[in-house]
């Protein structure tokens, strides 16, 4: 139990690769929180994928004890927040659990779009912000320019920004002192009823669900019976402690403190980020404000390449879902791809992370179908249906109108690529909201339909800017538009797995692209095959796969029979792997190539 005046809670806001994790490591190391021997690079990003991608997926936390130059001991709690917009809500909860932020900017690069979104979250949470210019020892470092940029773009005072090289250990002591002296102490009432915010939770195979909490008011102790106010469930605390960064038991957690509890909770699903925890008896009347349930916005199908791995996939998905309440799934069958799951994600990165974990940690080869968004289908009878899978689109005669999710996209791009980026956004039905300059770099803000972004926007943006653009987005709501279901017909038979929702104006283009792609992917048959894209009954694009004209072995005598027989066996086996649509055999590879998301 530490006095409020000697606690500082903070987070670090930074763009990927700007040195957030390295700085965290140095802070931990220089305060001897971890011995040399235990130190490994980037302590907080525990998952392989987090380390590889240089991103944080789950909030991590560490308690640092620091004896300041004034001789007093301070407890510094660092919450390392997820750095991506897919986890915007989680970020906002983490931000509300602390009082200040270090804004780390690479002094050789400057401010990036992603930094902006997170720093605005910090400002929204009323943080005091200490700018930190990192990589100050590199020749390309331009602290003056970057300081100016921070002031121009973010609008905070950067005149007393810290000059740091986390890698070389420069400015670490100054950073610790700044945390103590420039960030506020938390406030709270030890005698008030318990109010603890559920910041994050995860599943530990030995302990069950571990819950990360920030105590706002009151005191939490081992064996307390506590209530999760969202759904009223009662649990008894088995274990209470802090992260240093390993778990260390404590007797209690008081106001302003950050730590963990375990309470025989079996599923992460039972613990909602942002929920308020209080005592069963004499608890708080009202929860903390700001709770939102997490809602998946991007959906895609995940199918095992080898249908025999379906059960393995089910197990793996169930295990991942134990630890990730924001990830949803339901079984799906597809004529083209067999048995699999339709899965919902918070965004594209979330999708990629889950897919990577399934493939890597569970060793399952997956077919990932092109992601789609959740449409709101307003029926003529006044009801609304959520559409997760274009194949389920109801008959148009019953549909009044369709709404789609829109995002606010923030893109920073070097001047020379600005024209291309504007064109890309226009082509994707974007509406320009802002065009300003962050120092010398243009900053564009567009209102874009999410379905255009999940299609291939990222890849296009990367390619038109040679990788120099930075991009971030947030969901801003649903809006009506001319959205239609486009069907693909192969030899006049509809192929449901290839249906997609598209904007009416873009349908021809997308339809033509799909027909052309399929023409190359479907092998020639003994007859010609029309491949059509259609909306309702109307064909909007058509390609014809001409009939095979020649496929015969010129020479075949006695000894060749054996060889030909082997070939025939292969052809027969190959035919079994094809999916039949009417008289047309479509190889699974064709579906995979036509549907898959380019990674």
């Amino acid at each position, binding site marked *: 139990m530490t006095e409020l005046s000697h606690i500082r809670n903070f987070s670090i806001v930074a763009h990927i690769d700007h040195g957030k994790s390295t700085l965290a490591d140095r802070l931990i190391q220089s305060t001897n929180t971890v011995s040399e021997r235990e130190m490994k690079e980037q302590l907080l990003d525990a998952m392989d994928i987090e380390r590889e991608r240089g991103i944080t997926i789950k909030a991590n936390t560490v308690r640092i004890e620091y004896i300041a130059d004034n001789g007093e001991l301070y407890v510094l709690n660092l919450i390392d927040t997820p750095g991506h917009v897919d986890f915007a809500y989680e970020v906002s909860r983490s931000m509300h659990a602390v009082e200040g932020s270090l804004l780390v900017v690479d002094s050789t690069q400057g401010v990036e779009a992603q930094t902006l979104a997170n720093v605005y979250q910090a400002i929204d949470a009323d943080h005091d912000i200490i700018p930190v210019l990192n990589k100050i020892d590199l020749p390309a470092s331009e602290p003056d320019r970057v300081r100016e940029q921070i002031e121009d773009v973010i609008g905070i005072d950067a005149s007393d920004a810290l000059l740091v090289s986390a890698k070389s250990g420069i400015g670490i002591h100054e950073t610790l002192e700044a945390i103590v002296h420039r960030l506020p102490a938390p406030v709270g009432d030890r005698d008030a009823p318990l109010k603890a915010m559920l910041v994050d939770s995860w599943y530990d195979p030995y302990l069950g669900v571990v819950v990360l909490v920030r105590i706002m008011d009151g005191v939490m102790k081992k064996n307390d019976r506590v209530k999760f106010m969202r759904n009223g469930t009662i649990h008894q605390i088995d274990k209470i402690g802090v992260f240093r960064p390993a778990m260390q038991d404590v007797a209690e957690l008081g106001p302003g403190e950050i730590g963990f509890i375990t309470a025989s909770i079996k599923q992460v699903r039972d613990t909602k980020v942002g929920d308020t925890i209080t005592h069963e008896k004499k608890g708080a009347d009202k929860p903390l404000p700001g709770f939102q349930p997490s809602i998946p916005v991007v959906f895609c199908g995940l199918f095992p390449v080898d249908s025999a791995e379906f059960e393995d996939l089910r197990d793996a998905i169930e295990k991942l879902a134990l630890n990730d309440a924001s990830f949803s799934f339901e079984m799906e069958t597809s004529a083209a791809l067999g048995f699999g799951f339709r899965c919902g994600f918070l965004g594209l990165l979330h999708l990629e992370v889950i897919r990577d974990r399934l493939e890597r940690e569970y060793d399952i080869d997956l077919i990932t179908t092109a992601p789609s968004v959740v449409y709101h289908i307003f029926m003529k009878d006044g009801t609304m249906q959520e559409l997760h899978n274009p194949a389920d689109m109801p008959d148009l005669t019953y549909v009044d109108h369709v709404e789609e999710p829109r995002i606010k996209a923030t893109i920073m791009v070097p001047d020379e690529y600005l024209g291309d980026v504007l064109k890309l956004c226009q082509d994707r039905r974007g509406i320009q909201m802002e065009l300003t300059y962050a120092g010398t770099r243009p900053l564009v803000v567009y209102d874009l339909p999410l379905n255009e972004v999940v299609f291939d926007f990222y890849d296009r943006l990367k390619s038109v800017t040679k990788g120099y653009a930075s991009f971030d987005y947030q969901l801003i709501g649903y809006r009506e538009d001319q959205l239609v279901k486009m069907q693909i017909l192969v030899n006049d038979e509809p192929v449901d797995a290839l249906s997609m929702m598209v904007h009416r104006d873009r349908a021809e283009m997308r339809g033509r692209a799909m027909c052309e792609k399929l023409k190359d992917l479907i092998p020639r*048959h*003994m*007859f010609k095959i029309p491949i059509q894209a259609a909306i309702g009954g109307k064909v909007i694009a058509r390609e014809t796969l001409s009939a*095979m*004209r*020649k*496929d*015969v*072995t*010129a*020479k*075949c*005598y*006695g*000894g060749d*029979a*054996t060889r*030909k*027989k082997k*070939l*025939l*066996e292969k*052809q*027969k086996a190959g*035919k*079994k792997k094809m999916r039949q649509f009417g*008289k047309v055999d479509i190889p699974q590879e064709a579906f995979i190539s036509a549907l898959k998301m380019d990674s």
Partner: protein
Amino acid sequence: MDVESVEGGFGLYVHWPFCAAKCPYCDFNSHVAKVVDHRAWVESYLSEIKRISSETGPRVLNTIFFGGGTPSLMEPETVAAVIDAARAAWLPANDMEITLEANPGSVEAGRFAAFRQAGVNRVSLGVQALHDPDLRRLGRIHSVAEARTAFDIARNTFDRVSFDLIYARQDQSREDWRRELTEALSMTADHLSLYQLTVEDGTVFGARAAAGHLRGLPDEDLGADLYQITQDLCEARGLPAYEVSNHAVPGSESRHNLIYWHAGDWAGIGPGAHGRLTINGQRFATETAKAPAKWLKDVHTGSGYSDQTTISGNDQADEYLIMGLRLTEGIEPARYARLSGQHLSAQTIAHLSDLGLIAETSTPAGLRLAATRSGRAVLNAVIAELAATAG
């Protein structure tokens, strides 16, 4: 004994593995050797004939075929010894067909009379092209003029003469082929084997193609057109196709090759020779070692077979389908059903008939199923469809 494989006839295939030079497109088992111990080869062939005939028992021998390699490089005495031994080992048919593949060079032409003397009554000349630059590209060591001379000598020496041409060659236009084939048809062969050039793995052409150095090969459309031109011209000149790549004056079909396509029986001797034999009601596939020295050694130690396996009914049915549908006369669906215990799908047959790729005809002997002219152009797909949907 399976009556049907007896009905398909019985032949002897003799493989002579040596060539003066290896052609860049050829994936047959051929070797270039400086010295060949002819005596060892005679002994080995005779030893194999003796061994196999003791297994088959007395059977009517319809054909002998000397293939290679370049069998026209064999000593005529070797050929004579093999023919005599085969005649003695089995019961020679009155009209036994004895074919020898020959290179149309001047050296070989000089031996034709001796081959005739040995009993050969049919030659198959590897002319390959009537265009000198293309002969060189194909790696052939003879010229068009030499080939024409050899053909004339053969025509005067043997009862029946066939020759091979390779078409769909690099940079060959429809007009080029029409002209060349017309010229070929004006020579008085009773049989023509007209093959589209196939680039096989493991050949010089295969390696060149893989490296992107084999240019000017026809695309599917040109290949299909060349095939149709071939059918038109040959039909008009009275040598209709009786098999995918083989054309003959009616009655002059290669009886030996028909044994393969009728899924009959044949003994295969020499390196890399395959055989199909029905013994005590069991059908066997036989194989021999490909390397000449290895085969000689195997024979010396008792048997030239490197492998002998029984063929299941299903496999026999597949072979029957693969081989039989190559013939314009087609197959008997009933025989397929007897072998495999499965029926070809009526639905598939109807579908393929609608597409004009196959046709059913009823004969006094029962229903027959044959690929049409356009069906033969896509025969691999037709066979795969039939085989995959049988049940």
